[in-house]
């Protein structure tokens, strides 16, 4: 199978709301693929289904040849998923976070130590590696979150707005690393609201709107077709108005923020 991701009529409903509506697309191995859309369009829901965190209502999808409902463990072993929010243990150090994830993905302690060391260096976090990450800035947390996702050298990387909240220098570090990673054969599935990011990184992009896929092509061809920047392309296919976003019925109690 030459496809890293194959999606067929994937649908997710929350009650009466259809968040993802019969979406189909393929991502060949080694491609840097952008999945764009307005807030609430269904990007994150699609990604969470592909990463086995949500069960589809209907349809099928394969990641690295593993069907997401039939063989979720196969999917989990071969992917990395940087979620929209940083998902690290705030009362642990960077080292503790990375080493634990490394061993849970099957690395030996020595391998995890070596890999963690490389990634901390790359993300320029070596000096603060022994501090609790609750004391990190937003940008530092984001860079560490990405390092955590890369610990086991995943073949397919899902990135849900990975540079959100980073300053330009931080974004540039991440971009260059992702380019390098993609150059070494990793398939990258990216969602972002930064059109310059999608334009710079992605070979092809799909735009999803109201749960349906509206267009898929290379940024270059889409810009030629619409005649403008990728921002223009985005607005052309999704409309000018702010979309009605769906509610998240499973959102955490805001009080939680006081405890983290």
């Amino acid at each position, binding site marked *: 199978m030459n496809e890293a991701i194959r999606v067929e009529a994937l649908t997710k409903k929350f009650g009466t709301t259809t968040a993802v509506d019969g979406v189909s697309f393929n991502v060949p191995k080694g491609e840097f693929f952008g999945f764009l859309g307005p807030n609430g369009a269904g990007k994150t829901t699609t990604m969470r289904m592909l990463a086995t965190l949500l069960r589809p209502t209907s349809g099928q999808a394969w990641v690295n040849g593993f069907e997401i409902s039939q063989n979720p463990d196969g999917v989990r072993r071969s992917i990395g998923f940087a979620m929209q929010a940083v998902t690290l243990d705030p009362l642990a150090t960077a080292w503790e976070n990375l080493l634990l994830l490394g061993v*849970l993905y099957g690395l030996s302690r020595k391998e995890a130590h070596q890999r963690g060391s490389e990634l901390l260096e790359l993300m320029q976090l070596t000096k603060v590696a022994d501090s609790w990450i609750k004391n990190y800035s937003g940008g530092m947390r984001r860079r560490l979150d990405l390092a*955590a996702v890369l610990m086991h050298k995943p073949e397919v990387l899902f990135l849900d707005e990975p540079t959100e909240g980073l300053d330009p220098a931080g974004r540039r570090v991440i971009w260059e690393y992702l380019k390098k990673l993609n150059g070494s054969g990793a398939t990258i599935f990216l969602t972002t609201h930064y059109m310059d990011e999608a334009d710079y990184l992605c070979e092809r992009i799909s735009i999803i709107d109201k749960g349906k896929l509206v267009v898929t092509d290379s940024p270059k061809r889409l810009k030629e077709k619409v005649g403008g920047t990728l921002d223009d392309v985005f607005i052309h296919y999704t409309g000018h108005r702010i979309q009605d976003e769906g509610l998240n019925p499973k959102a955490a109690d805001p009080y*939680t923020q006081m405890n983290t």
Partner: protein
Amino acid sequence: MNKVFRDTYYLFIRGFKQSLRPYIALMPEFAVPIFFFVVNSAGFQRVSDLAEFKNYAGNYLEFYAPVALLMAIFFSTGSAGIEVVTDIANGYMDRLFVSPVHRISIVLGKLLATGARSMIQAAIMLAFVMLIGAPFEAGLLGVPILLALAFIFGMAWSGIGLTLAFLTKNPRIVQSSFVFFIPFSFITTSQLPLPLLSGWYKAAVMINPVTYVLEGMRALMLNGVGPETVGTIAVGFLAAALFGLVTLGAALFAFRRLSA
């Protein structure tokens, strides 16, 4: 199976560290049992003049010392649910769910960490009450028996908070599970021996499993291990195990819903 053990071990280490952090939060967990111990053993000292009481302990401090241990366990394990709900709310649980970690290891690691913490908390409290003058008739060999009881009961008690955490994902509800502590700890023989109780209160005390756990601890501390006490100690273990069967069964059921 090897992977389950390995994952459980590493999640146990993580859970144990998590339960100790931030270190300042450990203070109330010792302060409250010490407060009750000091105040009650001074305030109720005249109770030891009652003829029926003399069969149980030389003075009220001796009688109340096991309650301080039990309270230390209540307080140390009560935070397990909060820790889990924090993991859910800040996305760390998703980080684990998207990894190939065996689902059961997530719960087992947490439970073992909670049990271990209960043992340590009970050992520290035992040292404290002995320093104040409480006896420990079971001697050195009795220490592991007492700690084993603390381990089992600690895990069992944490099941209430864990169930609420997995079911509601709401920190406020989990925090409010503290109210269970009041009936389960006070409607026992914590204040007076069973023959001095009467009416509905006595009946309620007799159906409360915590009564038997407390009596097991009290037997170890005041009478040691011998033919007269072995039954009471065994019933203490049985009560802790049965209580755990119910609370941890509920927690596992709720966890399966969450991770499905």
